[in-house]
């Protein structure tokens, strides 16, 4: 609870500090490290997203040290909890006095942090959440587009719903189906956005000649999907799409098989991001498809180290003995942006100057070129959102066990090479 007294205390303290530190600034500015704050879910249900953080930050600090740059990273764990994320963001700003806040992974983490930063006039770069839930989710009235306002300090880079819709429909076009689509959308931030009648899947699918069977929003951690399966069976659906959490997808997929519902294509967001969750399906994960934001075969290089995607993924596997995951690329890109922004900022300790530098970014990162130039975006989001390329792919069983993620469609980003064609689920 932030009370009036706390407010007076903190403003008085920071005010006094600002006055005194302002006086001595020129003397310490030479050696003072640039302080970066980083918030991500390292524990709790979203922890798989934060798995690569330690590796990314360790190698970032090693790189900057070798380059003679003085950086310090204060890492905070959101514990997969939006309230906690807002709290640690405040700590970073008030207690740790960082110069720039970086935040990653799902709207539940990025939104509270970005909102706090915006309110405290702290520059913030955020990623790994589709831009609609990020931008619209932070607005005072998400239902009224005319009231939406751009932010001055919060910037975001990732793809959007329009990209994932394009990727999924491109993949479906490769296989002969009856164009009957089953929609499995949960009642959460992602599910409501994907299933939305105006910005989500339904209007686009209708335009492209697909018929959507959408029985309605289910709660996460549902133990039974027989109602949805019955609806999909009577709708004769051959394609399944949606954005579900991993345990729910496993429950759904097993029940679908038990009930004799066998679609030709299943393109699912969120549940199929990590190799561990696909492996948890056993052999039933073969040829399931998903959106792909980053793989070791993405033809991009780090602006910090010059290493390719494959090299960094290889290093991760070597350091941790774990398979690569998609968030590695984006966590790395966040720190690339931080260094680039701080290099260009007129005064790294001045929030306004740093925000200005973020807005002017033109950088080729590990996840592709990033610039907040409003390309492919509606006017209201043009200032604060930058898009990264998105492609689609399928999980293929390897001979020796385990899965490979094969890129099967790159129409949305031809620079990224495909590894094969779409195959129907047997």
């Amino acid at each position, binding site marked *: 609870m932030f009370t009036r007294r706390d407010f007076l205390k903190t403003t008085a303290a920071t005010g006094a500090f600002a006055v005194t530190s302002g006086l001595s600034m020129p003397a310490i500015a030479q050696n003072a490290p640039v302080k970066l704050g980083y918030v991500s879910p390292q524990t709790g249900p979203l922890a798989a997203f934060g798995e690569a953080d330690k590796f990314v930050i360790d190698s970032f600090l090693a790189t900057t040290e070798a380059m003679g740059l003085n950086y310090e990273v204060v890492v905070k764990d959101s514990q997969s909890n939006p309230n906690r994320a807002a709290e640690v963001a405040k700590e970073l700003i008030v207690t740790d006095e960082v110069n720039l806040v970086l935040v990653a992974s799902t709207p539940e983490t990025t939104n509270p942090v970005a909102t706090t930063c915006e309110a405290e006039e702290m520059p913030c770069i955020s990623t790994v959440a589709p831009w609609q839930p990020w931008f619209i989710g932070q607005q005072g009235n998400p239902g009224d587009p005319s009231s939406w306002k751009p932010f001055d300090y919060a910037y975001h880079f990732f793809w959007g719903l329009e990209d994932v819709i394009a990727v999924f429909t491109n993949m479906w076009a490769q296989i002969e189906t009856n164009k009957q689509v089953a929609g499995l959308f949960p009642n959460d931030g992602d599910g409501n956005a994907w299933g939305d009648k105006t910005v989500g899947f339904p209007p686009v699918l209708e335009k492209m000649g697909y018929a959507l069977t959408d029985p309605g929003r289910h709660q996460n951690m549902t133990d039974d999907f027989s*109602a949805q399966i019955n609806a999909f069976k009577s709708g004769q659906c051959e394609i399944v799409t949606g954005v579900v959490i991993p345990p729910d997808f496993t429950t759904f997929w097993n029940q679908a098989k038990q*009930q004799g519902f066998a679609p030709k294509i299943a393109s699912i967001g969120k549940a199929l991001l990590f190799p*561990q969750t696909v492996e948890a399906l056993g052999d039933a994960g073969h040829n399931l498809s998903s959106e792909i934001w980053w793989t070791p075969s993405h033809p991009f290089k780090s602006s910090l180290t010059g290493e390719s995607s494959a090299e960094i993924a290889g290093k991760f596997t070597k350091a941790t003995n774990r398979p690569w995951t998609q968030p590695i690329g984006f966590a790395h890109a966040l720190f690339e942006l931080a260094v680039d922004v701080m290099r260009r900022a007129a005064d790294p300790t001045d929030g306004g100057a740093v925000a200005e530098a973020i807005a002017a970014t033109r950088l080729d990162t590990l996840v592709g070129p990033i610039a907040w130039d409003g390309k492919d975006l509606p006017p209201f989001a043009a200032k604060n959102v930058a898009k990264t390329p998105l492609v689609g792919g399928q999980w293929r069983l390897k001979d020796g066990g385990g899965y490979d993620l094969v890129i099967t469609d790159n129409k949305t980003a031809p620079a990224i090479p495909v590894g094969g064609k779409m195959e129907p689920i047997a």
Partner: protein
Amino acid sequence: MNWLDTIVQGVLLGGLYALFAAGLSLVFGIMRLVNLAHGDLIVLAAFVILALVTTLGVSPFVGALMAAPLMFAAGWALQYFLLNRTLGKDILPPLLVTFGLSIVIQNGLLEGFSADSRRVSAGSLESASIALGPVNAGIMPLMTFLSAVAVIVCLNQLIYRTAVGRAFRATSDDPVTAGLMGIRPQRIFALATGLAMVVVTIAALYLGTRANFEPTSGPARLIYAFEAIIIGGLGSLWGTLAGGVILGIAQTVGAAINPEWQILTGHLAFLLVLLFKPRGLFPRAVD
């Protein structure tokens, strides 16, 4: 809407909830201890089965068979050395201790097994089903339900037909008098928790093969277990099965109307029972 299928799936789902609840019901019935760590103990047992299955390469059923004595010992020790110290007139200490235990188990599992979403594979059984007239029932859900019935039959036989069961009931009724008759309540409690852990292991087997689990997925299971027990009536094991089935059917019927209502209708059924029969449908305990 396919009514028959909806009801059958609901009954099968109810078996899973009854399995979650049976261990909790047993512990509560005998020592009035509300174990808030019950959900986490199920997840812990699932990880034990997973560890046995992956290291020894045995089938999950053999894994559960091997995990059961381990969990029995763990439950016995847990009760004897920790929870017994919290039992008394005040109902708060056991609640606080089991709440703390829940956090300890979650974070311990997080350290040991990482946050990955895991699953115990049951091979081709997972997708197999048999036709019961016009509806398809999955083999695994069917086995879950039959196991729930078997567990409850066995526990009832144990409680009402054996000397140990008599000691359970006596201790449950009046630990002091039972003590005068030569029963050691502390040991009876430890034995009961050990047994509850065996039931937990069976629940874990079906939880682990049905869907993914993570170190933090325990508490979400606890609420259904509680609801099944309350609907059925405290202290009645058959009531717990009935409670689970009612909860399951309420959920599938709700989902058939609109998936948004699936979880809600389960909770509503629970509230209705609380409203009209606050002691549950088949209450046994007098307090």
